[in-house]
């Protein structure tokens, strides 16, 4: 048996960012099928445009349209693409200096093998079919057959043919970047013991050898004094509500229809409360000091999860005295 329990976890969220006038101009250009750079005080055309001049620190204002054809200045082969990259098959990343620009722009180059790439080769931008004002409006680069002589190195004075989509709509002022990360998430050895205990219907905590506090779920070290927690203790399934909140707000992934009560339950003998649901009682009647006990799901539904406990329910005992839980608030 491995030391720890693990499970796949996906963390996903969208970053919403305002672009400001400079990156906004660049992304507006992409939406409209042109690549926009900026001329710096040193006379270099930089793509994407920097927001401030690297020498004078003045805000960037001198925008230039560059061509959608260019020359590869460096490249690398990607034998095993990762999620989110422009191609899900092997491809090359390329730094490409577009005609009219003085620095390269990074993007993916759609070729089938490293033998089809070389520094100095001519490529062109392949536009995405649907453009929204994001770097992904460039689907990637593709090789130009015959070297792409349609641009003769005349630079920024010549515009690449505009992509079919005409300039349209308002300037881009924001971007939404979805981020999704996959992990194999492991519990600590102590947490793993806790979850394995749950699969047997037991509530396992640990006692700190130094200050004798009891933690559930157990932690690898006592947060009070840093001692490794080694002594396992089994706790009863009864406890006291120390604090609670009534959930009235619906949210993504919610499993119970509001209103319902989420509460800190201090198990008898424990020195830290843990969060669970209080059901079988009107939400407005839940209060501090309420005595509760665990309600387990049918045994055949148990796994290594806290969800083996469906919820906590009032025991019907008198309320616990405030003194019994006041140091745990």
């Amino acid at each position, binding site marked *: 048996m491995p030391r720890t329990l693990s499970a796949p976890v996906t963390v996903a969220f969208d970053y919403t960012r305002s672009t400001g006038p400079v990156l906004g101009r660049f*992304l507006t250009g992409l939406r409209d099928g042109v690549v926009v750079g900026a001329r710096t005080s040193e006379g270099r055309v930089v793509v994407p445009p920097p927001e401030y001049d690297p020498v004078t620190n003045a805000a960037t204002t001198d925008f230039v349209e560059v061509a959608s054809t260019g020359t590869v200045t460096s490249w690398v082969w990607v034998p095993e693409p990762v999620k989110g990259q422009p191609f899900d098959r092997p491809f090359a990343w390329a730094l490409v200096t577009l005609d009219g620009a003085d620095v390269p722009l990074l993007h993916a180059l759609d070729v089938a093998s490293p033998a089809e790439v070389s520094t100095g080769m001519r490529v062109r931008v392949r536009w995405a079919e649907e453009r929204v004002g994001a770097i992904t409006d460039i689907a990637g680069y593709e090789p130009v057959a015959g070297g792409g002589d349609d641009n003769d190195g005349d630079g920024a004075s010549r515009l690449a043919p505009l992509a079919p989509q005409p300039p349209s709509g308002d300037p881009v002022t924001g971007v939404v970047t979805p981020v999704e990360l996959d992990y194999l998430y*492991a519990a600590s050895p102590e947490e793993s013991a806790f979850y394995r205990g749950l699969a047997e219907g037991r509530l396992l905590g640990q006692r700190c050898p130094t200050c004798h506090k009891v933690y559930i779920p157990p932690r690898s070290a006592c947060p009070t004094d*840093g001692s490794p927690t080694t002594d396992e203790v089994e706790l009863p399934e009864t406890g006291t509500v120390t604090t609670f909140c009534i959930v009235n707000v619906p949210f993504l992934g919610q499993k119970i229809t509001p209103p319902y009560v989420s509460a800190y339950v201090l198990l008898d003998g424990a020195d830290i409360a843990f969060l669970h649901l209080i059901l079988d009682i009107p939400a407005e009647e839940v209060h501090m000091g309420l005595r509760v006990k665990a309600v387990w799901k049918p045994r055949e539904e148990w796994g290594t999860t806290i969800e083996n406990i469906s919820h906590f329910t009032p025991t019907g005992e008198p309320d616990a005295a405030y003194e019994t839980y006041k140091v745990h608030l």
Partner: protein
Amino acid sequence: MRDVAVVGFAQRQMKEFDGSPTCVELLVPLFEECYGQTGWTRHDVGFWCSGSSDYLAGRSFSFVQAVDAIGVIPPVNESHVEMDLAWAMYEAWVKIQTGEVDTALVYAFGKSSAGTLRRTLALQLEPYTMTPIWPDTVSLAGLQARAGIDAGLWDERAMAEVAQRSLSDAEANDYAIRRGGSSVDELLARPMYADPLRKHDCAPVTDGAAAIVLAAGDKAREVRDHPAWLTGLSHHIDPIGMGTRDLTRAPSVQRSAAALDLDGVEVAELHAPFSHQELVLRRELGLADDVAINPSGGALVSNPMFSAGGIRVGEVARRIWSGDVTKGLAHATSGPALQQNLLATLSSSPTDQEGAS
């Protein structure tokens, strides 16, 4: 300036850590080692600072959980950087310079294997024009390697020579997760991975943690006969856009080096997660030929995220404590293709920087 020395160092490096990404259970024995080396308890530590990343951990506030390994009663003076251990050490050094504290324990941790490391690190990139297309760390390094090859600054053989030396030196490093040199020709015969990089040109994905103990003046002398005095610290950063950088250079390294006195350096531990990056660093630092580079094997043989840079400091400090060397250089990097760089000189004499030793 107060004289500040590295007086404690502990590390763990492994291919896969069988534990939680908060690494609490990994940090407890590291701190025990630091207490053992210094004779201190946790109450003797004036300031704590950690380095880690929630993106690596896949959960929020992972550094707060890690504080369990310290214990917080009575309350501790604590801070965190979303950077490598070397930068946490820099913050602690500044804290000691303020006179507010005399001692610090800095630590860093990361479970790189929990996710897809080369992908996760795309979140360090420019967020408008790079992160949305997820350029991975290995690819960005490959673009840099190719730029140098095309410019005639190095070739595949020079890169293999770095890997060969690292793998050979790693045979003496118990913490290395990759070790055992063969020959440059044998390495060159291996297949390309991310052309122009072979797998041995890239640091292995590594889990781990490390801790460094700092002390000022007499506090340091109480702990060690030969404290490793931090005689110089300097860090700079290059532009975030990959296109505007000359990838064959690292101006931030050169600028950091110019602020320090590198004369007399006998050993240099350089944080180069890719073989060609050691060549870039050596060029920018202008080190003499007789300087021992990465006797630990360096990051090519184990590169635990968020502690590998600080481990370079620890490796140099160990050699000063033992009396093997009197002056050394440690380098840490962060960001894509050597974007951010920190240099530290360590010496057996606290006044080395002024040339008065």
